[in-house]
């Protein structure tokens, strides 16, 4: 105890001497180091249902819970960042993985709100279900103060997701054919294990190595980064995961085909219980080869864009 006190005492003296000395030495041309968070240029708001979030109210929560990784300046350069993989989001770029909006557009307030509540599986971003909805809404508003894009642009329009058709062995079989045709396996691997021929070379937009999702990896509780319902999987490949190698397929896949692909992707989660795996089991556990139907409809642009469209 005494020892500890002494250490503290000397520590304090040392600290004082150092601080005084250093500040005297560098008083004239001290480099401007350390974060000096500028006051947000503009107070931002978020709207989640009937809750309105205010950026000013999130200041303390952000510093307490977020800045350690995302940085005081929102640039993803918090003190923990060197030890994290994948790296924390850099909010100043306003590029977000989990969106209901088309690639290149800003996510909706609700998208960001859901990401905070859901956390990002396979990363250090936990599930922030300890926050109240108001706190989360405030944080969404706060995130929007870091990039001027939020003042200049509107969020993209959420994509249209048609009603999910029934799971059949045919839809799974067609989904498998699409998985091959759209070359999902190039990165995700033929069995969805994240071991495709291009997997080892992938980097995110900050040039950090990144792994494609391994569908077969998880157990019965396996999750996806941007939500775990079938609609969430649909959303992921239509909108793409911005800032990563995962592109958007909005312009190249028809809505019903997209559902077939979702059904097949579920069967790649071999250890997870799902209606798709039940259908597959009932069909003897083997996916029959897909027989192409005669094309009746003329080939047209897929209508994944919402009416009025984002850009």
């Amino acid at each position, binding site marked *: 105890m005494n020892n500890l006190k002494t250490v503290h005492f000397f520590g304090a003296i040392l600290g004082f001497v150092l601080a005084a000395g250093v500040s005297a030495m560098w008083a004239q041309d001290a480099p401007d180091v350390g974060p000096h968070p500028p006051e947000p240029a503009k107070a931002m708001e978020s709207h989640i249902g009937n809750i309105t979030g205010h950026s000013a109210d999130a200041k303390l929560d952000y510093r307490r819970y977020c800045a350690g990784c995302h940085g005081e300046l929102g640039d993803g350069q918090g003190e923990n960042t060197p030890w994290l993989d994948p790296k924390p989001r850099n909010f100043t770029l306003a590029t977000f993985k989990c969106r209901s909006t088309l690639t290149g557009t800003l996510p909706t307030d609700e998208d960001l709100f859901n990401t905070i509540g859901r956390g990002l599986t396979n990363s250090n971003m936990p599930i922030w279900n300890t926050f109240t909805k108001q706190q989360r809404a405030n944080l969404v508003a706060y995130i929007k103060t870091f990039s001027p894009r939020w003042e200049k642009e509107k969020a993209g329009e959420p994509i249209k997701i048609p009603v999910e058709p029934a799971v059949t062995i045919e839809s799974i079989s067609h989904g498998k054919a699409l998985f091959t045709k759209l070359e999902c396996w190039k990165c995700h691997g033929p069995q969805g294990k994240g071991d495709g021929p291009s997997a080892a070379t992938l980097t995110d937009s900050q040039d950090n190595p990144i792994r494609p999702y391994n569908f077969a990896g998880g157990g019965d509780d396996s999750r996806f980064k941007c939500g775990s319902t079938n609609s969430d999987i649909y959303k992921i490949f239509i909108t*793409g995961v911005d800032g990563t190698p995962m592109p*958007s397929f909005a*312009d190249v896949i028809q809505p019903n085909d997209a559902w077939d692909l979702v059904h097949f992707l579920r069967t790649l989660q071999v250890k997870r219980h799902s209606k798709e795996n039940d259908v597959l089991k009932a069909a003897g556990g083997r996916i029959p080869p897909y027989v192409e139907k005669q094309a009746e409809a003329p080939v047209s*642009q897929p209508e994944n864009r919402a009416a009025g469209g984002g850009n």
Partner: protein
Amino acid sequence: MRTSKFCAAALIAALCPALMFGGTISGKVTYTGTPVKPKPIDMSKEPSCAKQHATPVNTETVVTGANNTLENVVVYISAGGDDANAPAQAVTFTQKGCQYLPHVVALHTGQELQVVNGDQTSHNIHPLAKVNREWNKSQPPGSPNISEKFDSPEFISVKCNIHPWMHGWFAVLKTNHYSISGANGGFSLPNLPPGKYTVTAWHEDYGTQTQDVTITGNETKSIDFSFKAKAY
């Protein structure tokens, strides 16, 4: 009425200087020192592309010609020659043999860019924009061209994540006066009305250089750029 007047004014402004004066800035881009040797690309993981090339394709980070000339340098008017309007015609960026053709494409802000997949394999077009919006789109074989625009001037690095050797650039400019140096390192910026201009030469690995040039009339001013090759 207002529109037609505006059009007439724009037409005169656009055509007359070109017809009456039409100054030209032209020259050559060269390098000094020893540039990095182009590396052959291993496309064996994509047989449909590998078989399109009798000999391995080289990386295009630094492409040189005879007499130390430097290719793929964007030479453009960076000050004094901004154009308000983008040409109506689209520029085309083609993926063929798992290569980008051309390696560097220049275009005006707001100008349409058409991305074509001429291969029998899927590509994803991923411009790593920092000022403009970053997007990433899949383009399987036979799918329609992707049409996009960029709002702000920026040199955007473009890659295909599926084929990591594929790398190119979109040079988004505020001017229509640009030229990309060819195999002989040559460039030419014609149709310049009299004025003071800043000419910038940009190379993806060697950075930028600028020179000021004054055009007084119907003349051709010759300027050259010389980049120092980066040591590796």
